[in-house]
Every structure is written in C-alpha cells, then in structure tokens.
C-alpha cells in the first residue's frame, strides 16, 4: 500500500509525464488518462513507436524515452507487465539526462523486479495504480462517481485546476 501523502507529493511535484503506450484511439483507457491529466495542467508526452511523427491530443509522438527532447519528471507505463521491465531499464539509464524521478506502472501492471531496480536507482516507483484515479481520489473528484476514496477529513477541499 502506498500512503496517501506519498502519492499526493508525487502528483504535486510532477509537471511533465512521458506516457509509454499512449494510444491515438480516443476510446482507449490511455487516452482517457492523458486527456484528464492534460486538463489538470500536466504536460503529457506520448510514446508509441507505431505513431512516430503523428500527434496524440495535440502532442507529438516519440518512439522511445530517449528520443524525447528536454526533460520530464515521470514515466507512466501503459504497457503490460512483461514490457514494463525494459521500459524501467530505459528510464533508469535516462534518470540524470532527463530528470526522471518517478516511474509509475498503470493498474494491472505489477512487476516487482522492475520496481526493485527502480527503487535501487533512487526512483519513486508506483505499481498497479492509475494517476488519473489517484489524482481524482486525493483532490476530491473521485467520490463524485460513488467511489470509495477512504478519505475522512473535516477540511474544506481545495480543488486544483
């Protein structure tokens, strides 16, 4: 289990996210997450070797993490558990060059070996969670869908943009 303050800290600190496995089809889960995060002020850079040179939700698509110009804070892995290992290795190799501090594996992606490697390299690693759902849970929107956030607070929620 990840404590709420850890997830909250990551989501507040991170501004730019490389999304590996982003899909150009709007009805796919990755597209839902990318659009939502864009709406909350994050810059999301799509990574998908099949769509290099095209755009997803207004952002140019890159073949891999090293092709992305400039820095990014977080890698969001929208690939299966088996593929997560190689992506983690690539992220570890680029930690300094790209300024990566978080590798986040989506819901259903559980790769303990990759997580250990990432943590040993000093990264924050999250597995089997969705940043959209966690953002909505921690910043007061998820309960609107009748979903149990587990949050009890007498403080007035401060909704972020």
């Amino acid at each position, binding site marked *: 289990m990840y404590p709420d303050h850890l997830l909250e800290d990551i989501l507040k600190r991170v501004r730019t996210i490389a999304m590996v496995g982003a899909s150009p089809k709007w009805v796919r889960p990755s597209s839902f997450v990318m659009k*939502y995060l864009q709406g909350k002020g994050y810059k999301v850079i799509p990574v998908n070797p099949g769509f290099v040179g095209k755009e997803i939700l207004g952002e140019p698509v890159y073949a891999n993490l090293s092709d992305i110009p400039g820095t990014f804070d977080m890698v969001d892995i929208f690939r299966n558990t088996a593929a997560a290992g190689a992506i983690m290795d690539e992220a570890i190799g680029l930690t300094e060059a790209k300024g990566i501090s978080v590798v986040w594996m989506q819901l259903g992606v559980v790769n303990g070996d990759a997580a250990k490697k990432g943590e040993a390299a000093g990264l924050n690693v999250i597995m089997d969670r969705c940043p959209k759902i966690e953002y909505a849970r921690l910043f007061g929107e998820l309960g*609107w*869908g009748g979903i149990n*956030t587990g949050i*009890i607070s007498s403080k007035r929620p401060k909704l972020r943009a």
Partner: protein
Amino acid sequence: MTDEKTPPEPGFETRAIHAGAHPDPATGARNTPIYQTTSYVFDDAEHAADLFNLQTFGFIYSRLTNPTVSVLEERLANLEGGRAAVCAASGHAAQFLTFFTLLGPGDEFIASRNLYGGSITQFGISFEKLGWKCHFVDPTDTENFKKAITPKTKAIFLEVLANPGGIVVDLEAVAAIAKDAGIPLIVDNTMATPYLCRPFEWGADIIVHSTTKFLGGHGNSLGGAVIESGKFDWAQNDKFPSMTEPEPAYHGLTFYETFGDFGFTMKARAVALRDFGPALSPMNAFNTITGIETLPLRMERHVANAQDVAEFLETHPAIDWVSYAGLKSSPYHDLARKYLPKGAGSVFTIGLKGGFDAGVKLVEGVQMISHLANIGDTRSLILHPASTTHRQLSEEQRIAAGAGPEVVRLSIGLETASDIKSDLDQALKI
C-alpha cells in the same frame, strides 16, 4: 513500497458519520447540502464533451449523478468495505440496475427462495418478461445452489438475513460455490446493514440495499443502492460480455478495461441508470445520509429490543413459535453467531396458535405498534404477510418463503421495550 506506517482505518462509527462527506468546497457548509438541482453548467464545450465521454469526473444531470447522492454512495461503499456504489430510487430499482448490467436475454440466475416477497415477484415474473430466468432454491442446504448452476447461470442472489422468516444463510459456503462457478454472489444486506454483517468479508461480490429500511431508519425516504467489492474478475470467462466487450450504448467503451475495479458501478450508472432512469432524489439521499450517522446506535437498540421481545413472545401462551435467529431455540442460531455476532437484526416472525384469524386480530388489535408494510423504522411495525406483502404468491410459495397463514412479521423499533411487549400482550388477549 515504503516502510512508513499507514494510519489505522477509522472505526465504523467514525465512517458512518464522515465517509464521503467533507465540508462543501464552495461555502464550507459542514453538513452535506441538498443539491436540489437537475443539471450543472459546463465550463466550455470541451468540458461538456469530456463529461459525456466519461473522460473526466463531474456532474451533468441528476439522473446520473448528484453531489448529495454521491455522498451517500461513497458512504455506503465505505461502510460495506467495497470499492464503489450507485444509488437508485428504491431497493427494487437497485436490483433492476444490478441484473440489467449482468444479464442478457436468455441468461439465468439462481436466487434463494427465502426473500422479501416483492423480490420473488420481481425475479420470478417481471424479469421473465425481459428474458431473464430465475431459479429459486431452498437456501438452508447450500448444495442446492451448486446443483442449480447451468452454463447459462450468471449470478447467485440471496438475503443473508432473510425477510421475513429469521433464516440465516451460510454465506461463506455459497460464496465458495459462486467463486468455483466464476459468477458473482449478490447479497441483499438490507435486513442486517453493514453494522451487523459485511458480506464482502465472507466472499460476496455485489451487495444491494433497500436504504429505505434500517440505513435511512426513520421511515421517511425510499432509496436503494448497488455496491461492488471491486474484487470480481469479469474477464475470467466469457460470461460477462457487458463488462468485457465494447459497449454499443457507449460509443464502444469497454467498461472493465477502462474503469477496472469500479467498472461494474460505472456501467450500472452510465447505461442502466441513464437509460431507465430510477434516480434517487437528493432530498431522499439527504435523509438517508442523516439516518446513517446514527446507524450504529440505532442498530444496537434495535437488536437489544428485538431480543427482549422475542424472548417474551417465545413463552407467551398464544404463540406457537418464534423464528428469530437470536434465540437459542433457532436452528439458525449458530449461523447468526458467525455472521451476525452483534445481533440477528430486529425483524422476525411469530406463528400464532389461532392461525389466520388470530393473525388478523393481532395486527388490528395493536395500539402503539403500526400495522403497515415496511421494516426498519424507529417505530415498531407489524404485518400479516399472507394477506399483504406475500399476497401475490401461491399458498405453496408463501409457506416456502416463511409466510404461511399463521405467520405475523414484526419489525421491532426503538420504543421502550416494555411498551412494545405490553402492546403485543394486550392485542394477543383480544
């Protein structure tokens, strides 16, 4: 992962008051406001599109979501230990949303025959018109559920504490049967409430409630709820295409893949509630939220009063039998101790030595107890099922459901226990 300790989960009483409800972001109002509005402005056309596409969280129209209703939904999901909930206008509407989301024409499910009479009619007659076939079984032998499973079976349904007859079903055993068959176990937890029993802890996958009863608790508001555990794997077989295949009523969205462990709730809301419309009103949600804040206190008194009245009636000369699982004489006493350790609810039946006529005399003779068709009120209630709630059933079905001609149902309220007993005593002497 991290070595830091997660704070302990707050207790049931704390969650009954706080879960789902934070101060209003706009005004700071501490109690949950009644958002008495049909609809909600969009920021711009893009925001509207995102909401309609389910790409972001927010409010469109109160048939789908309403901020007051959302508080109740989250609170119920929290108290049951589930992932998510969707409310409906009544318990019956909640059952409709559940089965519409699970079944297609030609599909079947198995239900305990010991259910609220209205559920027996809904499942056995009205659902059949939609092509959904329900097979009823005697739940006192759990093997009956197993024997009734066919390749078309998509779910098992039961009331853990059954209305009206004081029967407790062996939940854990039935959950194991459902798990083996790769189908969800749906439990109607209305009679117990999550204060007395939490079916997800015994392996149930979906819980339905009539919130009209003990949750609201004051006999002032209808309501229903569907709660999902978030633990059922809809993709383990090909039985649930409505969860695992693109949904034509939602531009090809695949609900399980997109929403994961709250996919069933999203589907029930975005398709069944949207297209059939049995939404809960914000006013009723408000009354129910207020009721739930005192649920633990009320349930403690409900079960204490019920135990007292049941023990009194068990030795009363006009009474043939008392079917209350809190009594040592009940064949369900051990199951009640396992699944309902804080008490076996406050609804039970009694058999009158004088048969049908004595039942009519009793319900007409009480002065403080109310003769009406409801349960789970602050007030004590009395009913003769054979002439009311179970009237539409055949004589054979009535007896099987624990509602024979000599049977009277009591829902013990929160009045002074001695007053409840003396009212029954004077009416039994008429």
